[in-house]
């Protein structure tokens, strides 16, 4: 057999072995250091979008309602300077009938994201207020019952549907977030979840991959801090 073919075969073998070793190493790192996420929230708030982005790096091409839950695989990936290691999780339905599944997911999680429609709360939608109040009544009970409390984040989505958000420059976005936090319903949610020290409120949009990346970066900068 000519020497170049042998060298090429050895190179292929080495690269295959290296790929397998890297994948196996990532699995080990995820198992040891990975965080398990629980992504909760009512219907249509963006749970599937966020879970898909975190587990595949892309956003869904076609959207469908999440009726039966979907398994979301473990993944290690880099976002700017962040090295994210996420364990397998479940994308669950947003119906109230799924509260038992939410609790199970919450009880196993290191980090809990509660997603809500920020644009609807800003617009004063009473139905959305009533729903998030009910959700947080359940979640606060689960948080209190845990011996080691998970990190808890309230993530306001769909801000791109709020005209004020769109017209706010990046240097003024802090004021926008402060204004959102001062909404009576948001203050109530934060208080229910253990107060401002325990509950981070983050706002953003997931309209495009770039928007989603920016929101995820914002969230995970606080998760790893």
């Amino acid at each position, binding site marked *: 057999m000519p020497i170049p073919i042998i060298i090429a075969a050895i190179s292929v073998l080495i690269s295959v072995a290296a790929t397998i070793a890297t994948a196996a190493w990532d699995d080990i790192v995820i198992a040891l250091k990975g965080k398990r996420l629980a992504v909760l929230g009512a219907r249509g708030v963006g749970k599937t979008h966020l879970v898909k982005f975190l587990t595949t790096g892309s956003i869904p091409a076609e959207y*469908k309602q999440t*009726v039966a839950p979907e*398994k979301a695989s473990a993944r290690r990936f880099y976002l700017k300077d962040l090295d994210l290691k996420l364990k397998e999780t*479940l994308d669950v339905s947003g119906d109230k009938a*799924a509260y*038992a*599944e939410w609790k199970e997911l919450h009880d196993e999680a290191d980090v809990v994201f509660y997603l809500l429609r920020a644009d609807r709360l800003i617009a004063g939608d009473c139905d959305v207020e009533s729903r998030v109040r009910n959700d947080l009544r359940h979640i606060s009970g689960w948080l209190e019952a845990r011996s080691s409390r998970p990190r808890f984040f309230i993530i306001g989505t769909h801000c791109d549907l709020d005209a004020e958000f769109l017209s706010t420059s990046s240097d003024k976005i802090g004021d926008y977030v402060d204004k959102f936090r001062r909404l009576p319903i948001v203050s109530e949610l934060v208080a229910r979840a253990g107060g401002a020290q325990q509950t981070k409120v983050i706002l953003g949009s997931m309209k495009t991959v770039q928007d989603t990346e920016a929101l995820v970066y914002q969230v995970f900068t606080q998760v790893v801090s």
Partner: protein
Amino acid sequence: MEKFILWAQALDNSSPDHFDVRGKMLSADDSVRRQEAVSSVSSVIKNGTRVYDVSGVLLTADDRHFVLEIPSAQRDLSGRTAPIVCYGEYDVVESDALGASVAVALDVFAKRIGRTLQPEHFKLMRISFETLKKKSSMTKLVRTVGIGALALAFLAIVYWLAQRGW
């Protein structure tokens, strides 16, 4: 209908989900039976394996139960496709009949909640149950052969020990 749990999300994303549990539509305030239905479906998804995934028709099964998801023609207020989920028990021997009875149950449920199911999805659903039948038969065969081999090995050891006067 009486063998299955059927579940669909409301198209307005605010009304309660539609549930038919073994032939009875659940009322909005029947939270206990609604949560039981969701738990049954979740259990199969968590512990089972995905058997079929083509054009939005998804079939997941554990040892005894299946969860089928099939798209309906309608979209919700956010423009998302609105699937219907069917949960039930399966038996490999009766899986041909099962495909037919799931089709009937889905059709009745879809009409009751104002949804339309496409003929091509019904066809894919039948194929999904055929796939489940093949996979289950193979699993049973492997399991039977494995148990048989273990039993033979055990008998051989017992015979060998008996020959040596143990």
